[in-house]
Structure formats: structure tokens, C-alpha cells
């Protein structure tokens, strides 16, 4: 089947624009059945092969830029002296400039599927493999604001999505009073960014402060990168050339508070190349998704349980990250006392100005005191870093591991409070420390239903009356997120979003449902 259709969204207000596209598909399918009496092993088989091609436009009005909006007076805010007319001013209201030669998008999808049913319909399998190529995408592409707009709407980019969907259903028990049916779904999608507009290699999808997801050419869509990630150590020779070292790739450390406290450095403050300034942390895309539904029916009772799962993919949580700075999360207990993993150490004898600070170091610790809330950092000190030694002198700790520097007495384990506060604070924190794997298995729904007997329903002129009790989002059977963070609380539903924000918990709901048919 094919038809030519068009979209008004690609027509400009002077009536120019290429707006029509061909919509067509071919589909072939076969149905194969065995005689019931001969084998009962396979009752039904279907093979699907299809290809379809589709186009599209954008949303209404977006191609017509250069449009203005009315200023404050019309939003009922008298921002200016009432006697002056400028309250009714007009301003540029669109920051996305649409190119004047946009064409429709194009998506082609090839799909092959096999559907089998057997054992007297007690076993079913549906398998689909698809390959979808999207090109000439209408992308609102970020451009430098110095050009006067923040984005342009252009055609560009090519993304492929390949994947399999497998659905397996079976009925282990089926007799007069009792039946058990079960259905497992499994999906795996692999996507790849083939090209981006303007020949760039990265396009931002979603962003939090200092950490973002990008589409990167040649890689999966939704790669997590962070300027405020850990800096990765790179050893250099005397001429500043990169050299091999077993320490390469380790987090980089620096010192603050007159070299008394070791801290992690941000990648952007260490790297010398754009890649090193914004390292890749990993993919946010799931390895696979799966679900499993079981239904048990006994006479008029039905019990259903539905479990779904997402496995793999990274997530960054502001709740988790800033919760660390506040020391509000269970995981920040680590290191606070000896029992909680704290390292025993003696605070520095140092006080910068003995007259004004007789008893306290910069970070509020009494000097020369034994404490057991030390945390050992893991990493290598950046070139040119000085460390305050236990001898009250500063030492060059460049290129030394933290452990090594501590053993020499040139660095001190960091007290737990300062460790968490500095690593997770807004102005200096390492956002990568707020990243974790987002995998979960959720008991999504359980319901218990009862069908009233026909003898009862017929009396009240009903065909069917079913009463059920159900619960949604009951529990995570498995949750890789730390501190009971709700991994599904993403800040929006964008395809590149991997950012949890606001700490909204997993909300369980319970209910009673009555279904009636007349």
C-alpha cells in the first residue's frame, strides 16, 4: 500500500516548503497450521515479513520563526511606570530558528516475526526482530546563543534501532476448576547514532548541572558524560607528552584548605582535551527489559501477579548526590566511626595562624587529636599538588597515590563529614559520585478477583460482575539504586533522560475494582 500525503507543518507562512511524502508498506505473512489430530505439538504458525516507510513533519507553527510575542503588559504585570506606553512592548519570543528549506522526516522499518502456538494452545511464542532507520529527522539542534537564537530546527541525523521482542506464553495447568497461565516478555533494543547535523559528534539530549546525556556518532544514543566527573589521571613526561603508567585512568586528587585536605578533582579542571574534560561515564540505555505475568484461576477466583524488570543503564540522582552533602542518606554512615569503616588517624598539628586559630584547623578539627572517622580517597595527586604533612611542612605529592602519600605522612585521611560535603557539594562536587546502575525488578501489580456466580448476576440483570482487590507498585524485588532511591522517578519522560530529581518515592497504591457488564 502506498499513498502520498503531506504535512502543513512544513509549509512556511509565505507558502513555500516541501511538505509531501510517500507513505507505503509491504507486508507478507503466512499462516501455517498442523492438523489437530496428527500431532498437537504445533497448532498454529505465522511468519511475518514487513517493510514500511513513513514520513512526518513537526509540530504546528514551529517552522514559522521570526514571530514576536507581546510583552509584560499582557501578562498582567505592570512592570513599568504606568504612565508610560512602553508597557505594551513587543519582544522576540522564539529562540528556535527553523531553517527555510525543511523536508519531511523519513523512517523505514524492516521487521521479521514468527508466531507459534502449540500443545493445544498451551504454549505460545512470538518472536520479532526489527531494524528501524530514522533519517532527515527534524531536530531542534542547539546552536551557540551568540548567534541570537538557542537552537535551529533542521533536517539531519540518522539513527538506527535494531532489536528483538520475544513473548512466551504457556499454560502449565488447565483443568475444570483450576488454570495457571503465564506470559514472559523480553525486549532488547540496540540503537546507534549514525550521523548528526552539521557534522558534529555530540548532541546533548538531557542535562543536569555538569553532567549530561548525549547522542554520540558511532555510539549508543544516551551516553552519559560529565564535565564534573572524576578527572582521570594521565601521566606525562618532562615535555608534557602523555606516557603509559599503571596509574593512568585513576581519579585525580588535589588539596584544599592550605593543602590540609585531599579532594577529588573535576574532569573539566584537569583534562587538556575535550574528551578528557568531559569523560564518558557509560550508557544509560537498558541491556534489556522483561516482564512476567502469571494468572491463577480457581473456580470464580482469579489471582494475577505482574513483575517487570529493567536491567542495565546508568542513572544520575540529585537526591542521592546532594543527600550525600547533607549527610542525610544511610550510605553516608560509612566512615563515621570505626565500626562503620572509619580509618583511625591523627589530625594535623597545623594551624595557619596560631594567634587567631589556636585550637582549630581550617576544617574545624582540633589539631593533634586521634580520630576514627577517616576516609581514604582512591586516586593519584595531580602534578604540582602540595600536601600538608604530619610534620607541619608542605610536601610535593605530585603523581603519588593517596595511600602512598598517607603512608609517608604527607596526606591525612579525610574526616567523613568533610569528605561527603566536599565530594557532593554543588560548587565543587563530583557528579559522577551520584551515578549508579539503574536496574530493577518490580512487583508491579497483584490482583485478586472474584466473579460473582451467574445465578447471582442474572438476578440483577447483569452478564458479569467481577470484584477485585489490587495493588500496584508493591515492592522492588531487586533495586540496584542505593539508599532506596526510586529509580523510576526521572525528571521527565525524554528518551535521553537518566536523571532522578526530587526524591519522589515509589508510590504503592491499593484499590478495589468492580467491573460489570450488562
Amino acid at each position: 500500500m502506498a499513498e502520498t500525503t503531506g504535512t502543513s507543518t512544513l509549509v512556511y507562512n509565505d507558502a513555500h516548503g516541501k511538505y509531501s511524502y510517500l507513505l507505503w508498506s509491504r507486508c507478507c505473512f503466512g499462516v501455517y497450521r498442523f492438523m489437530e489430530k496428527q500431532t498437537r505439538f504445533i497448532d498454529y504458525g505465522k511468519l511475518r515479513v514487513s517493510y514500511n516507510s513513513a514520513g512526518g513533519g513537526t509540530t504546528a507553527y514551529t517552522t514559522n520563526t521570526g514571530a514576536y510575542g507581546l510583552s509584560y503588559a499582557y501578562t498582567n504585570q505592570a512592570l513599568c511606570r504606568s504612565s508610560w506606553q512602553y508597557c505594551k512592548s513587543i519582544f522576540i519570543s522564539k529562540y528556535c530558528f527553523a531553517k527555510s528549506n525543511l523536508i519531511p522526516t523519513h523512517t523505514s522499518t524492516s521487521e521479521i516475526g514468527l508466531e507459534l502456538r502449540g500443545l493445544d494452545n498451551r504454549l505460545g511464542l512470538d518472536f520479532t526482530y526489527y531494524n528501524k532507520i530514522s533519517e532527515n529527522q527534524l531536530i531542534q539542534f542547539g546552536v551557540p546563543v551568540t548567534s541570537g537564537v538557542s537552537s535551529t530546527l533542521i533536517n539531519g541525523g540518522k539513527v538506527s534501532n535494531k532489536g528483538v521482542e520475544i513473548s512466551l506464553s504457556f499454560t502449565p495447568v488447565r483443568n475444570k476448576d483450576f488454570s495457571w497461565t503465564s506470559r514472559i516478555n523480553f525486549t532488547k533494543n540496540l540503537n546507534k547514532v549514525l550521523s548528526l547535523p552539521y557534522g558534529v559528534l555530540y548532541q546533548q539530549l538531557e542535562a543536569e548541572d555538569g553532567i549530561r546525556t548525549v547522542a554520540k556518532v558511532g555510539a549508543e544514543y544516551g551516553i552519559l558524560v560529565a564535565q564534573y566527573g572524576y578527572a582521570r589521571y594521565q601521566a606525562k613526561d618532562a615535555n608534557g607528552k602523555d606516557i603509559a603508567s599503571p596509574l593512568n585512568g585513576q581519579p585525580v586528587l588535589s588539596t584544599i584548605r592550605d593543602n590540609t585536605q585531599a579532594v577529588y578533582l573535576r574532569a573539566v579542571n584537569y583534562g587538556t582535551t575535550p574528551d578528557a574534560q568531559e569523560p564518558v561515564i557509560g550508557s544509560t540505555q537498558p541491556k534489556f527489559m522483561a516482564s512476567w505475568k502469571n494468572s491463577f484461576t480457581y473456580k470464580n477466583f482469579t489471582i494475577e501477579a505482574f513483575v517487570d524488570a529493567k536491567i542495565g543503564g546508568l542513572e544520575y540522582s540529585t537526591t542521592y548526590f546532594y543527600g550525600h552533602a547533607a549527610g542525610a542518606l544511610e550510605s553516608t554512615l560509612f566512615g563515621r566511626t570505626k565500626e562503620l569503616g572509619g580509618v583511625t588517624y591523627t589530625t594535623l598539628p597545623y594551624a595557619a595562624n596560631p594567634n587567631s586559630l589556636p585550637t582549630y584547623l581550617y576544617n574545624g578539627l582540633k589539631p593533634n587529636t586521634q580520630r576514627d572517622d577517616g576516609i581514604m580517597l582512591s586516586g593519584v595527586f595531580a602534578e604540582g599538588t602540595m600536601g600538608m604533612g604530619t610534620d607541619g611542612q608542605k610536601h610535593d605529592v605530585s603523581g603519588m597515590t593517596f595511600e602512598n602519600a598517607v603512608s609517608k605522612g604527607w596526606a591525612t585521611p579525610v574526616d567523613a563529614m568533610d569528605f561527603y560535603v566536599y565530594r557532593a557539594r554543588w560548587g565543587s562536587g563530583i557528579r559522577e559520585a551520584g551515578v549508579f546502575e539503574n536496574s530493577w525488578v518490580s512487583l508491579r501489580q497483584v490482583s485478586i478477583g472474584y466473579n460473582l456466580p451467574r445465578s447471582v448476576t442474572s438476578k440483577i440483570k447483569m452478564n458479569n460482575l467481577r470484584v477485585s482487590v489490587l495493588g500496584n507498585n508493591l515492592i522492588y524485588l531487586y533495586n540496584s539504586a542505593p539508599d532506596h532511591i526510586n529509580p523510576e522517578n526521572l525528571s521527565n519522560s525524554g528518551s535521553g533522560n537518566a536523571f532522578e530529581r526530587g526524591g519522589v518515592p515509589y508510590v504503592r497504591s491499593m484499590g478495589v475494582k468492580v467491573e460489570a457488564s450488562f
Partner: protein
Amino acid sequence: MNNKTKIIQMKKISFIILGFAVAIMSGCSKSQFAKDNTDPDAVLSIPPEKELASGLLAIHSNSLDFFYDYHLAIRPWIQSFVGMSGNSSNTFNSPGNLNSRWNQFYLNVGANLVDVIHLIDIMPADKQAQYQFMRAATRISLAYFAFYVSDVNGSIPYTNGFQARYTIRQILLPTYNTQENLYDTLDAQLQASIAVLESTPSVEQVSPVGNDIYYQGNYTNWIKAANSLRLKIAMRLIKRSPAKATAIANAVLLDKVGPIDGLSSEWVFEGTNNFNPGGNNDPNNNGHIWAGEKYMVDFMRTAKDPRIRNIYRQSDINTKDIFDSAQAQGKLPAALIWDTTGYRGAWAAPNASATQPGYYFGPLNFSYKGSTISAYWTSHIQERMIYAQESSSPFGGGTAGTGYNYFPVITYADVCFMRAELKQRGLSNDPMTVKELYENGVTASITDYDKWANAAKVYQYTPLDAAEITTYLSMPGVAFDAANALEQICDQAFIDFYVNPNEAWALVKRTGYPSSTGKIMKLEDLSTGSSPVVMPRRYVITFPVLGDLNYQNAADAINAMKADPGFGEISDITGRVWWDMP
């Protein structure tokens, strides 16, 4: 289910192939589509003057600039604000969210003002001729904001910027102007604007009237504004190129209209009571309470500066009676003598609480006339002077202010101080004496502060008595003293810039005054003590991220700035932009 499947049961493979059919779309015409795809609310063509107001308003409507840049960064950095409970060394770091002026320029101020110019330039010739004065005036404000953005960023796109909307000159990847080139470019454009506005127009000019938020279409005042902005550029050039600064200054002074020459031609935006478009103008947002700096308050109080009551509120401990109660209850040291004033500053040095008496920091709770009061020893700022809506009680309760604020760009006092400094440095042939210029500046500043405080309905406003100016001008440290003239000029300009912190900061960077080693009005030396800090001098320069389309231009501009040793690392806010030469 079994019954159903039996009905459709078949014995052999069926293979069905569906053909395809073609249906040609018909009906919808392109012009109908064009109409459908045009937002009925869209305004597609406008008279340029209507957009002028938006561009000008945007200069003052960026409340992130007020809150983060002014209240949390610049003012504390230059000791104009001190946290009521003292500063920490973090006060002198970046509070984050700085430099919103960048986007404000490229997406609002500049985008609109450049569009005004564009709309004029695409008019038919006869109509275009009627708009030449408006076009010239628009360029002056555009130049001001470019200057303002560059002031903390160094190189910025200007000449090639803003061109994405215009198909003919569509430039998505603008190159950067170095600050040096930007100053030359802006100065040339200001001269061109002045030349147009001083010419006799060939046809009657369209007036922007109410859309001109500063001068309501008074083009003579716009000439004065342009000349004053030229002077401001000249001041920035004093170290890099004294000859250029002199040439500009003398040209401005010889111009037939000249710079701003009185209160009536000041380049000031008069807001309304609720002028707080982004909601963040309030300096007390997020629980901040601000005091003045100890030495500055002492200087103003001792010299009987009439502006003191418009900039600071009297301390809670402002009568001997309250003082005695606090002292009797051990909240103030027994040896402390009643100072007969309600105006006291706070210590700006980080962790000053370790070295200064404790009663300077945090509220003192004591019983007074039978009830417990919580009183600060130091005086907090007159919040309404910068945020007219402020409650009469910053600690909760109170009533909202009903006045309004003025937002100065360049005032007459500012021009007087610039001229005085240029003359004092021997960089201009100003016909007036340094003393005249200095005294005119002080007088203009005090007069403005009285007018602005009255409009803002500051707490316990007391009108200015003209005799106060005379008295003030005769006080030690204020009375003109040729031997300390430069410091006096700068200190007075610093006080005058209380409401214009970007200029106050630039003044400190440029001249070093007020100085911790000064003879007139000191500020604290923050470079020693237990938590030495260095005053920041610019903002973090953001290196472009991968995928930034303009990566090359931005990286080139930043790397070129880094070649100057004074610039420092991009994230080092104590580094210097081009004009800020050591």
C-alpha cells in the same frame, strides 16, 4: 477459545500477499497549509519602536544578575555587603549561577536591539530615513550591554553575533571580538551614533517616545549618554592605552553636546514597585541578611555622609537605653562605651569571628523593658534602596514596601568622577578643575541618593537638608585635598556605585581604591589572617563542550586570552580580562 480456532482451521499453508495501491493526495492547497501553520497569535511584522522597549527593559529585567552576580558575588567580594553573621572564605568563591548576563545579551537585550536595527534596515528607503535617529540611539544601548558583558568575560562575539535569524546574513558560528577590538568597535559605533544624532535630519524622525525607557525620545540626552559611555570606555583603557583614553576623553569634552551634564540627563531606568521580573531581585532571598563593611560605615558616619541613612538602617541597638540593657546582661563587653550611633559595620574578613569581638556576629538575645529581644550590634542595609518591595522587617513580619527603584546606567555623579579622575591623572584637557568636578560629583550623588531613597520609601526616610552637603564637603577626608585627590575621587565614586555594583567592582579593580592601605576610606585587607582570600576579578570562562558547534571560535578566543599571563586558568576568577592590567 478452542471452538473459535476450529472454525478457522485450515489444512495447508496459506500464503497471502497484499498488493499495494496508490492514492494521490488531493484537496489541501499550499496557501491553506501556510495559513494553518501560522500561529494565529503570532505577530509577524512590527514597528521597530515596539521592540526597542523590550530590548531596553531586558537590560534591567535579569533578576539572576541581581541576585547571584550583585548580591551574592560582586557586593560581598568588594566589601559592599558583608553577611550579617560574618563571611566565610566561600564568600570569595563563585556562588555559582554567575554570568547570566551572557545569555541575557545574546537572547534578549542584543537579539531585540539588533532586530530593531534590522527592521529599520530592511525598510523602504523613504521610511528608513525617518528612523535613522532611533537606529542611532538603539546602537548606544546595544554598545553599553556589549561593554557590560565583555567586562567580566573578555572576548565576546559582537560584530558577527545575533545573525542567526537573518537568512541573508545567517551566521550560526560567530567569531569573537577581542576586548581591545570590541572597545574600538563600540567607540566607533558610538561616534557614528553621535554624528547622526547631531546632524540635521533630512526628514522628520519617528520618535520612540514611551518605548524609550530612559529618555522618552529626547535625542539630545542620547548624545550625552553616548558621550558618557565613550568616557567609560576611556576609563577602562587608562592602563592599556593612556593615549587612546586621552583622545576619547578630549573628543567627548570638545563635542558640541558633550557628556551627561546634570541630573536631568542621567541614563537611569525608573522601575515600578513590582519591577522584579525574574523574582530574584530581593537581596534577602534564601535567608541572606546583609550589613555594611566596618570601615566604610565608620567613614560615612564620621564624615556625616547623608547617604548613610539611605544605604544602611540603624542598628537594633540604637539608643543608650538598649545598649545599657545589653551591656548589663553581659551581651556587650563592660568596657565598651556607648558610641551614640545606630550605624555600625561588620567585619568582612573570612572567619573574622576568630579575631574580632563576638558581639559583631549574630544576634544578641537579651531582655529589654520586660521582653526578650534579639538584636544585632551591626546595622543591616536599607534593603529597599535596591529592592523597593522589601518588608520593613527583614527578619519576618513587617509590611511590604510601596516605593520604586531607579536603576542607573550612567549618572551625572559618575561622569563627574570620571572627568575628575582623568583630569587628576593628566589625561584630559577638561576646562573644569578637579575640585569642581569632585564636588559636583559628591553633590550630584547625594542628591540622587536622596531622590532614590525617597522614591524607594526606605525605612525611616529622612529628607536631605541642602546644608548637609555643605557640611559634608567640609569634613576631614571629604573636603577636597589635592594631595589625596585621586583616592578621594575613587572613594566617593565607590560610595556612589553602591547601587551599581558592576561599576564599583570595576573601580576597585582599576584603581585599587578604596584600599586597605588608603588614607581616606579604608576597606579591610583580606589577603592576610587565618583565611586569606583574594578578590575575584572576572568570571569563570566556560570552555566549550564537545558538540558545541562554535567550538573552534570559542576555543580560539579563550586560548588567545590565556596567552596573557594575567588571565590565568579559565576557571580562576582571580584572573584578569584584557583591560584589567596589573
